[in-house]
């Protein structure tokens, strides 16, 4: 892959916090598209057809949606259009007010933050001034920064609706969540008196190191690296002198501490840069005072202020002197224009890479919490089953190394000196179980019920039509680090350490489970060994706290892999009915897509965030899930009148958002259906897409991925393509698949082109596209769960058939197309297009349209005992 070695900085970083790509992206720059392609060792030149921003915006604005919500969708698009128009002024268009209600209202009188003030004379440190070459979408809002009274230079910035791109706040359900911690009047007053309490803080130490608290999870997506890069650039500080730590649960952040919907960089890039820029300005001012020179003559680089006469002062030496004696609003600053950015946009290795390759990166169970003993839970034979009677607790307590056996709501826990002994103890338990919530349910039942959940299409009048149906099996999140948490519960307080995407809701739930007020629970967020949506749920934290409380000692609680797959979360199974109507001449007139999904459990705060983020009520009769579906599903094509609907089947399975949520199945189904439609209309699948995509940016991505579409391959091998646009980003996957043995298909090559707006870290973007590719290969070809009498049969990676090296192509190229658009989301972007590309390649290679995924889904193993 790309030959550029990681910057030296990355190598010094030891235990900085994690980081990486998923999020990411950043603002733009002026040149519309140089594509920095890095991928397998080849450097490609880029290209990117000229893309007219305006066409991008307006094209999108026209996409037609299902009826009923058009009003809302249109207005969102309206603001988006403004965003992309490149004129900051437009961003303050009349639509903006609809997303402005800031959940954290309290702010001092000195924060005139009016969502729409940027034009005003005060126009404070707006990140980018309207005329800034930063171009598009910038300058629409200032980000208020504060100099905070502290021993060394400390800058704080608001995060929230006012710091967000307007469309981000309204269009993503992710904003964040916190239900039961909504402030009462007293809280509001307290917060009002402390305007900096709910801010993001950047501290510069006398060691010359900047430390930033990130109110998000790092789960491998590369967010900490991207955030460190943003700071490095704006502060002129080497990357290895920036430490990004994950914030503990901070209830005052309300809806701004939830990691999801690929929105972290979209939400944070501006405030993070503003904080760094304010800190840099303060350092310059401090040096100028000290030297008695004009600040305008001073420059910064490599963590020091430089005077024209050669004098320099390291930031560390200025840190204490630059500290504010009392908290005040920081003077206005201007963010660097894209052309002056040196770190952002440069492919950069993860800041925690060295810690990872030396085994020093710590996950929850690697932490040294004094006295915390291993604990594992024996779980019921069916999902949501209950403990009826434990027969041999005393005998198990007597086993070697076993310290305690305690009953909790979800099973029976064994605490021991080692996990090996806890595991042996739990296996030795004899327990009678009460019924679960879906004991009779099996895979085929669910499939049949889903098919009946949405009505079949009636024959259309007067026009021709093409119909297809697709089914997707449930898929385990299966992060490599199983569900786990450390908890130390005392009489009057508790401390928890775990990987968490929604720590505020998690803290409240833990508190409730052990009967303490949330204020008595310290909730530390630890870097995750993968997530894919799994860490939105905090069941391990609750269990660890319950076990710690019952056993009267701190515990390190871990789920076994078997339990993680069987009792953990899963992407809900879905069924899709699709229809395109068209004229006799082959012109599409309409696309209808009816999705049936087992109810998705969003009880982790997203629902509350969504409610808070919406400025209009959902359409009459619309459920939360339908709102979320509507906000995430868009067809990138002009296929005439388009209606995409969701109907949920209420079954109490352990479902949850799985990377790319609805799009991972629904948009994948549309992309495969599109191939069928093209074929039936006698069109080439790539050309068919190309002519119906709405914007130049979309076409640029498709073109970059399909330059050698149609090249000669042996019989039994074929190319397949998939496209997806979401999170203000777009991607196309081309894969080549060898299905000469249809039972042993192998993706042999992939070409991926992605446009995420300005990519903060192109290397991180590329990593996320590679991850999407692997997820696409796995879930299209082999990975899935068979629900059988109330429990999945799969209990290991080999049974679940998640992709391994032998399933992964040895030839991959990723083109990261640079653009001057606002940064879009990245982490979840790839999956739908990758799934579709693999499915389409399989169909073309074998001549068989597959209706049910994964394609190869035999139970080829002996399930573990229940």
């Amino acid at each position, binding site marked *: 892959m790309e030959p550029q070695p990681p910057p030296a900085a990355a190598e010094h970083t030891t235990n900085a916090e994690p980081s990486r790509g998923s999020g990411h992206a950043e603002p733009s720059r002026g040149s519309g598209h140089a594509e920095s392609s890095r991928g397998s060792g080849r450097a490609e030149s880029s290209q990117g057809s000229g893309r007219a921003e305006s066409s991008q915006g307006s094209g999108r604005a026209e996409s037609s949606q299902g009826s009923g919500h058009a009003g809302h969708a249109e207005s969102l698009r309206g603001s988006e259009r403004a965003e992309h128009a490149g004129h900051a002024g437009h961003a303050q268009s009349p639509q903006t007010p609809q997303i402005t209600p800031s959940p954290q209202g309290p702010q001092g009188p000195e924060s005139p933050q009016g969502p729409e003030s940027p034009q005003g004379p005060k126009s404070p440190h707006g990140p980018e001034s309207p005329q800034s070459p930063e171009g598009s979408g910038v300058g629409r809002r200032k980000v208020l920064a504060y100099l905070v009274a502290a021993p060394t230079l400390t800058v704080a910035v608001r995060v929230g609706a006012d710091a967000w791109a307007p469309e981000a706040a309204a269009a993503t359900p992710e904003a964040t969540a916190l239900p039961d911690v909504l402030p009462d009047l007293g809280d509001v007053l307290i917060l009002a008196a402390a305007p900096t309490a709910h801010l993001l803080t950047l501290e510069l130490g006398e060691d010359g190191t900047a430390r930033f608290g990130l109110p998000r999870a790092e789960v491998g997506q590369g967010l900490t690296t991207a955030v460190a890069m943003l700071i490095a650039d704006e502060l002129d500080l080497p990357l290895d002198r920036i430490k990004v730590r994950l914030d503990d649960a901070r209830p005052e952040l309300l809806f701004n501490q939830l990691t999801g919907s690929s929105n972290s960089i979209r939400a944070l890039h501006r405030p993070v840069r503003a904080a760094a820029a304010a800190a840099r300005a303060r350092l310059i001012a401090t040096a100028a005072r000290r030297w008695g020179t004009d600040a305008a003559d001073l420059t910064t680089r490599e963590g020091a202020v430089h005077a024209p006469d050669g004098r320099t002062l390291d930031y560390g030496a200025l840190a204490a002197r630059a500290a504010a004696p009392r908290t005040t609003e920081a003077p206005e600053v201007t963010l660097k224009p894209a052309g002056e950015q040196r770190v952002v946009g440069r492919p950069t290795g993860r800041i925690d890479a060295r810690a990872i390759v030396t085994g020093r990166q710590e996950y929850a169970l690697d932490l040294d919490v004094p006295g915390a003993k291993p604990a594992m839970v024996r779980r019921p034979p069916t999902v949501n089953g209950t403990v009826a009677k434990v027969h041999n607790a005393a005998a198990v307590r007597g086993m*070697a190394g076993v310290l305690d056996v305690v009953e909790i709501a979800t099973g029976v826990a064994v605490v021991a000196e080692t996990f090996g002994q806890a595991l042996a103890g739990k296996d030795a338990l004899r327990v009678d179980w009460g019924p679960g919530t879906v004991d009779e349910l099996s895979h085929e039942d669910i499939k049949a019920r889903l098919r009946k959940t949405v009505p079949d299409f009636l024959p259309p009048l007067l026009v021709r039509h093409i119909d297809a149906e697709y089914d997707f099996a449930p898929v385990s999140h299966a992060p490599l*680090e199983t569900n786990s948490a450390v908890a130390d519960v005392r009489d009057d307080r508790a401390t928890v350490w775990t990987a968490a995407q929604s720590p505020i809701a998690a803290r409240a739930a833990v508190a409730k489970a052990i009967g303490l007020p949330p204020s008595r629970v310290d909730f530390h967020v630890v870097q995750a060994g993968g997530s894919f949506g799994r860490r939105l749920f905090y069941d391990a934290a609750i269990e660890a706290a319950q076990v710690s409380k019952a056993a009267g000692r701190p515990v390190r609680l871990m789920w076994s892999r078997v339990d993680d797959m069987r009792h953990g979360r899963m992407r809900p199974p879905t069924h899709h009915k699709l229809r395109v109507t068209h004229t006799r001449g082959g012109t599409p007139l309409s696309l209808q897509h009816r999705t049936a999904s087992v109810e998705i459990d969003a009880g982790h705060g997203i629902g509350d965030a969504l409610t808070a983020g919406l400025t209009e009520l959902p359409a009459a009769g619309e459920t939360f899930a339908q709102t979320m579906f509507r906000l995430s599903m868009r067809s990138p094509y002009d296929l005439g009148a388009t209606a995409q609907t969701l109907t949920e089947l209420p079954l109490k399975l352990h479902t949850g958002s799985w990377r790319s949520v609805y799009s991972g199945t629904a948009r994948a189904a549309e992309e495969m259906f599109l191939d069928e439609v093209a074929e039936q209309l006698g069109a080439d699948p790539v050309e068919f897409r190309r002519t119906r995509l709405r914007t130049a940016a979309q076409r640029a991505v498709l073109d970059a991925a399909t330059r050698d579409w149609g090249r000669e391959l042996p019989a039994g091998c074929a190319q397949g393509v998939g496209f997806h646009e979401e999170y203000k980003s777009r991607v196309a996957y081309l894969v080549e698949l060898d299905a000469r043995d249809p039972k042993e298909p192998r993706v042999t090559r992939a070409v991926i082109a992605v446009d995420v707006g300005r990519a903060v870290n192109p290397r991180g973007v590329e990593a996320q596209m590679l991850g999407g590719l692997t997820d696409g290969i796995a879930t299209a070809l082999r990975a899935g769960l068979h629900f059988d009498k109330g429990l999945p049969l799969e209990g290991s990676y080999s049974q679940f058939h998640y992709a391994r090296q032998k399933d992964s192509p040895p030839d991959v190229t990723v083109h990261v197309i640079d653009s001057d658009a606002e940064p879009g989301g990245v982490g979840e972007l790839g999956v739908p297009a990758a799934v579709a590309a693999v499915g389409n390649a399989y169909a073309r290679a074998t001549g068989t349209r597959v209706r049910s995924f994964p394609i190869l889904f035999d139970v080829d193993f002996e399930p573990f005992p229940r």
Partner: protein
Amino acid sequence: MPAHTFTVNGEQVTVDAPDDLPLLWVLRDLLGIRGPKYGCGIDVCKACTSHLDGEAVNPCAVPVSEVADREVTTIEGLADGDRLHPVQEAWLEQDVAQCGYCQPGQIMAAVALLRRTKSPTDEEIDAIANVCRCGTYFRIREAIKSAAARMS
């Protein structure tokens, strides 16, 4: 409880543990060596891959009694002080890791492979069965090839 004496990362250790306690838990829970990760406990995911007398093994499936007087190397013992092993260097060069949880095992598997063959073929790399749920396989492959070039 029986005492077991063996070498870990160059140091001799003695632990009291049942004979059948998997080495993984001896390392992680008794010795505090936490580079090797749990991912399945049954030698399927390979996240704990370490070396026993220089060959790749999965400590989750090796009873501690089997390592008496033998030499165990975990990811922590791979580098020479601050000087990384060429495979670790290659991992940095390719920026392989995402969540990083499987990478100690991936690296130990790659080191073992490169001990068996100086320039592994794609088929030999395919045979590494360590699961990476983030899907970093392509970069792992590139890093192994890069390391092979560095070491030749």
